[in-house]
């Protein structure tokens, strides 16, 4: 699990947020979530099954996402995940925290001696 995260270059602990965000756009099955993250990041992040499924279990257990078996566009059965109310709230909070953090990090990284 951990090595997979490193391979895909994902910052530790952000996978859950990315999944929540992806599912926030529309309900999606497992493979679709992986592909969607890869597409949106323009191939920067590749999330494999070994990372995705434990993350789904974690989020499902904490009541942030909910699974439901449906037919895909190709007429196959797949488990579609969607956000719960709690999941939406968590996503909002995590996005807010993330923006605050990255902004702060960006400021630190841009700092030069004259501004201090």
């Amino acid at each position, binding site marked *: 699990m951990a090595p997979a995260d490193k391979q895909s270059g994902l910052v530790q602990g952000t996978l859950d947020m990315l999944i929540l965000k992806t599912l926030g756009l529309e309900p999606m*099955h497992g*493979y679709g979530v992986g592909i969607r993250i890869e597409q949106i990041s323009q191939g920067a992040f590749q999330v494999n*099954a070994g990372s995705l499924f434990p993350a*789904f279990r974690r989020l499902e257990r904490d009541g942030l996402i909910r699974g439901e078996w449906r037919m895909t566009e190709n007429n196959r059965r797949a488990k579609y995940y969607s956000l719960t109310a709690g999941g939406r709230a968590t996503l909002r909070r995590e996005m807010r925290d993330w923006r605050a953090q990255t902004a702060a990090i960006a400021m630190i990284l841009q700092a030069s001696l004259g501004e201090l």
Partner: protein
Amino acid sequence: MVILRRLISGFRRLIHKPRFERELDGELHAYLEAAIHRKVSAGMTRAEADRAARVEMGSIEAVKDGARDVGWESLVEAFWQDMRYAARLLWRNPLFAGTAAFSLAVGIGATTTIFTVANGLLLRAAPGVSDPRRLVDISRTERGQPISNPLIAYRTYLDLRERVSTLDALYAQQGQPEPMIMGKGRDAERIFATIVTASYFDVLGVSPAAGRLFGRGDSEERGASPIVVLSHGFWKRRFNADPSIVGQTLQLDGEPFTVVGVASEEFRGTSVVALDVWVPLSAKAFDNGFLTSRMPEWGLVGGRLKPDASIGQVAAELDAIGRALAADYPNESRGRGFLVANASPIPPSMRLVAAGFFALLMALVSLVLIITCANVAGILLARAAARRREIAVRIAIGAGRARVVRQLLTETLLLFLLGGSAGLLFARAMTSLLIKVLPAFEVPVALSLPLDGRVLAFALGLSLAAAVLSGLAPALHISKADVVTGLKDESQGPSDRLRVRNTFVVAQVAFGIVLVITAGVLGRAMGRVVSIDQGFDSRGVETASFDLSQAGYTNTTGLMFARELANRLRKMSGVQAVALADQVPPRGMSVGPLIAPGVAPPDEGPLSGAWNIVDTGYFETLRLPLVAGRDFNDGDRAGTQPVAIVAEAGARRLWPGQNPVGQRIQRQAMGADALGGLTTLEVIGVARDLRLVTRGGGPPPIVVYVPLQQKYTPHITILARMAEGQHATPAIGAVLRSLNADLPPATARPLDDESGPVQVQLRVAASVAASVGLVALLLAAMGIYGVTAYTVARRTREIGIRIAMGAQRSDIVRLVLGQGMVLVLVGCVIGLALAAAAGRLLTRLLFGASPLDPVAFGGAVVLFAVIGLAACYMPVRRATQIDAMEALRYE
């Protein structure tokens, strides 16, 4: 909230495991299908897409494992999985599992047995009382030290009752069982009563099985109409559990007592003696001094804590009361204090000694447990060698080292739980056996040794600790195994495993030798106690005790009767000499205050003497020589100058450098006897010291003998020196019949029987040490055999080469034997050093044991050498029969 949700979802997953598994399978299948579909859309062939998708996904099982590992429930599952796997492995190796579990059962069982006994005697109150945790026992201390005689004067009990505020209520009971005669004449029966205060049952919270128990409502005044409560056992045995006995009267010591009720079945009193009846103090006639003097040592005191009080508060308060009493009544209470402890069948002041004894036994059986653990660890290590390949495969396909260690520890754990449960059954059997084989005491003994929560926790904790101790080293050891060499499966393992096994064998031999030496030292000490020069000749002397007051004899008729009894007995055939005495050595003396005019008492408190009342001929009968002065004679009777004979050591202490004959001493009240003021006695003789085996601090009391004619006692013991092979019981029976006495028949017991407390302690310790020593010996033999056989197997090729190169049989024997015997030698050296250290401790705990007994030490070494040689025999034989050609082809 989150934790609760996780908990619930975890349980749901555990319960609906198959459904979750199906769902995960379906999802992964859908994932794979979607991936393949996408690759096909991108232009791959179906077969190419299929392969690519599978490569991308990796091992499906690993993905599933990752998903399963989310949440705490996976740990439970993994544990359960490990357990099942371990159970299968053990099931497949019944010989290994059986041997290991059996030896563990012995080790854990023996330890648990000792703990159960200590628990029953020291840590819990006697059964049948309510809320036992709030009950306390109060003992006496002298000069701040616990004393072996914990009894408190009745007057002091009243002081305590008046002054104590941290206890709800107090009770007291007479320290010695009170023998009473039930019925009359020949049908009379001797029973034992506990004399208690009226508050006894109320404070303890005992419930009746029939009728009522006496309580605060019943008068503590003298002469209140006598009542009695029967014990359940006595009621069943004597009255067939007939409930109509309540309200009837029994003749006890010639007085009518009304039976008011029967105590509950569980309640058999607060100590280890189980008596027949309880009689309130008001029904017993005491002399006046008993009620007013704080000197007599009478009874045991107990109480119940107030709801808001702690035992520490009680101890503090009792300290203050002790000081106040010493200030208020310096003559009687100087140097005296109190000791309080949670209620248990052993009085607080004796618990330290008892605890020391149990600690000794515990140390002995713990050694066996350690040896067992070393043995099992050795077996586990040997098994581990056989499993190197399996473990290496598991590590190679990605099992973490921690996971492998956990799996191996689980196996050990299962083994130890099996051993532990079997050990618990073993302990159960041992304790019930113990209760059955208790030596027959004069007074019935009741031991309640339940396997309570504390014992269960002890056995479980012990099993777990032992499992971790003996499982960890092998588990860590294998998990370190190098995957590559492991997979190559060379039968030659790394040599440090052998080193670990050798260490275990050395430990087994060392601890085994400690046990065997201890058993030897104790056994020889036991022989020494019996053959010790006691100062008198106990062989052939038999004793029988009577209570003349029970048969209605008075001071004058009693003395005449007793002397007539002795006279007639002297004429019986087989009887060589007869004497009468109050007490017989070594069972005890009445300790009481002693005043020597002109001799300043020590600062710590009044002098005390060990008093014995004897009739003429006592010293002759015991062959206890007088070293100065004269013996008592018929002229020393009531109305003449009171005389005394003092033992050598006491005389030296009182009048160093002076002639003791002609000196004067004064006697005050003894026990619950009359307090007739001071009697001045003239010392007429000095007797040789009794070398009694006693232990403990402080100077021994001053032994004083006074003549029966001047100090009557209704407690008469007949001492008869019998011709060889003759017993006194029939002779005494015949004399009693010829005297037409109203006394119940008595059984004579040999004076040197081995039921003295020291002998019993030594015997118990020696037999425990001997039996665990035997187990240790067998285990050590198994260990030596195992390691030598393993070496031979490992070095088969090398030995083959040696033989091919022309090595003689004797060289091979030397090679293999050397390997095994070096371990024995190292173990022996360590063991001897340990035993020498342990011996010093032993002599402190048990009298008569000599720490560096050459016979015990030498014998143990020889024994282990023989065992070591025997254990090496088979491997050596195998080694010499190795066929060089075959061995060279041996893998």
